[in-house]
């Protein structure tokens, strides 16, 4: 089992330039059902799929607008690789077309654009993952994003992370410990993101195929603390946490106002203490995320 995406998910790709097409090809090679791409001005044509594995794939049908794609190929998820200046617009176009799950990989989107897009998505009742994230994968079924597929293995551990490559690290450790994953989600590290830890914990709580969850946080903000309190109150499965940035200097301040809004909160030490207070086992080092989960499950 899994959350949000699986083998029947029908994926649209917005942004099929060189990088977007490369990653889309990798997703298709993984077995993901990618049903179309959106490239304004190229509607009615197709894009060649070459995953570099010597296999032949059907070319990807292209559409001018998300609406056209929805009418023709009925996607239920979209992944966005549109470059930063147009990415928020792409998110809103997907939401307006009623695609229920929007995964935005693009990094470097202006914060004000994201504030507008996040609000728009919410009003349309859609869900957004990202931006500036590796995407989401249900191993063995569906890979949506830029993560290397082969490090994952199907199983019962859910992974939620603010980081990209640190997520790969944790997943690789799980795989090496013989612990497969139900679904892994990178939620992104930007100030404004579509889904936070608590949103996905609620999904994992309901998923009978998930037996434990890894939550990888970073310094800054309060989302880890909010998630920790939710876990203590409502979450029924074991959780292993990790917070990156224990050695990050307190300097590099965002000026007065940045510190005000957090009320001086957001250090790794504070987050780790909060996680532990709420019954979450915190991995002692980034090299011990997998083993910590294994030990917890064997208790």
């Amino acid at each position, binding site marked *: 089992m899994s959350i949000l995406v699986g083998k029947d998910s029908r994926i649209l790709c917005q942004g099929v330039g060189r990088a977007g097409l490369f*990653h889309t090809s990798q997703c298709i090679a993984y077995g993901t059902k990618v049903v179309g791409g959106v490239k304004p001005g190229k509607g009615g044509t197709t894009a060649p799929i070459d995953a570099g594995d010597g296999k032949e794939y059907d070319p990807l049908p292209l559409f001018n607008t998300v609406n056209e794609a929805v009418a023709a190929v009925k996607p239920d998820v979209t992944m966005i690789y549109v470059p*930063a*200046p147009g990415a928020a617009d792409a998110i809103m176009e997907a939401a307006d077309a009623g695609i229920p799950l929007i995964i935005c990989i693009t990094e*470097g*989107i*202006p*914060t*004000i*654009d994201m*504030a*507008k897009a*996040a*609000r728009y998505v919410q009003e349309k009742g859609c869900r957004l993952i990202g931006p500036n994230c*590796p995407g989401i994968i249900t191993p063995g079924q569906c890979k949506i994003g*830029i*993560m*290397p597929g*082969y*490090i994952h293995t199907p199983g019962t551990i859910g992974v939620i*992370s*603010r*980081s*990209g*490559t*640190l997520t*790969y*690290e944790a997943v*690789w450790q799980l795989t090496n410990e013989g612990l497969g994953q139900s679904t892994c989600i990178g939620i992104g*590290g930007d*100030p*404004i993101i579509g889904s936070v830890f608590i949103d996905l914990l609620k999904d994992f709580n309901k998923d009978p195929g998930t037996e434990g969850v890894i939550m*990888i946080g*970073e*310094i800054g*903000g*309060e*989302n880890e603390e909010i998630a920790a309190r939710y876990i203590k109150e409502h979450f029924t499965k074991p959780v292993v946490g*990790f917070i*990156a*940035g*224990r*050695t*990050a*200097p307190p300097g*590099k301040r*965002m*000026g*007065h*106002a*940045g*510190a*005000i*809004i957090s*009320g*001086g909160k957001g250090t790794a030490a504070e987050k780790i203490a909060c996680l532990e207070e709420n019954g979450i086992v915190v991995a*002692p*080092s*980034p*090299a*011990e995320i997998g083993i910590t989960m294994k030990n917890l499950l064997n208790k």
Partner: protein
Amino acid sequence: MNIHEYQAKEILAKFNVPVQQGVVVNNGDEAAGAYETLGSELAVVKAQVHAGGRGKGGGVKLVRSAQEAKEVAETILSKPLVTPQTTAEGVPVHKLLVCPGADIEKEYYVGMVVDRALGPVIMASTEGGIEIEEVAKNTPEKILKEPVDPGLGLQAFQARRLAFGLGFGKDQLGVVCQIMQGLAKAFLETDCALMEINPLITTKTGEVLALDAKIGFDDNASFRHPMYAELHDSTQENETELKAAELHLSYVKLDGNIGCMVNGAGLAMATMDIIKQAGGEPANFLDVGGGVSEKRVTEAFKIILSDPNVEAVLVNIFGGIVQCDVVAQGVIEAVKAVQLSVPLVVRLEGTNVEKGRQIFADSDLPIITATGMLEAANKVVEAAKGGAS
């Protein structure tokens, strides 16, 4: 990206925020001239630097004559300004703002940021002019907040709520609302990450003015604001960090002796953490980003090695987008290009890792390889002590 006070005031003024007037000068003679022009008996000479805490560092001085203005200006311009928020070397001062002395009755704080939970939010407090972080920490109820809809802007009723909340009466309501709405509009239209008026003052004659202003822009929005480049003052930034930023490498210098190069900010922070746990001290944070090419790795090495404290380097790459064999080739070419003289530990994982490891094995360079993060950290700490190289 931060800008100077005088630049921030110019932007706010364009959005109908009344700001205290002033004259920007470059030397003592101009400062004396500015004193005469202003015609105020008491004037203030303010160093234009990006760091806060200018007053405590001697960068803000009261003057009572043209001669004094000239002398004070020459003193401030003569050396880097050291404040509680700068390094011990301080920051260079090239420009000064000369302002008339203000007859302050009361000081307020107004600021705006993008909060993770609330989105864009304007904040105001009656506790202006002082360490506002302390107010936030100890008496958070003294900070009023209004979330600002990024599409609609700050509504008039929200501005009134803030004005009344700060204790303003009917007479000043109009101008205070104009200031709040102007600030919010400026923030949204110029893509700010941070905007502050601290203090906003009322004078004994009933005027309301921005006495000081600070603006930080969202670097991600630079593509649609050519003015960012015009307002940028590179003399105010750390040279190495600036060079890294030009190469789109994210670099922060730290105090340790183990240089690190990692892809991804989270993994980079985690790598620093594990170096510390292994008994070492990281010399830097460096996120080399997605495209780990030979050129980028070479540039990253140069930046890491420009720090004389570095005694060993750890490269930790988890290849997702980037392939390990490409990284390995890049590292080898970079090591040759910079003639690396300190021990190098490389930990590679991800796409094409076997090919990558083979490339290191086949090279005749003294590169120490590791498979896990912990092994890598232990090896680099050992190497820095002179053990493994």
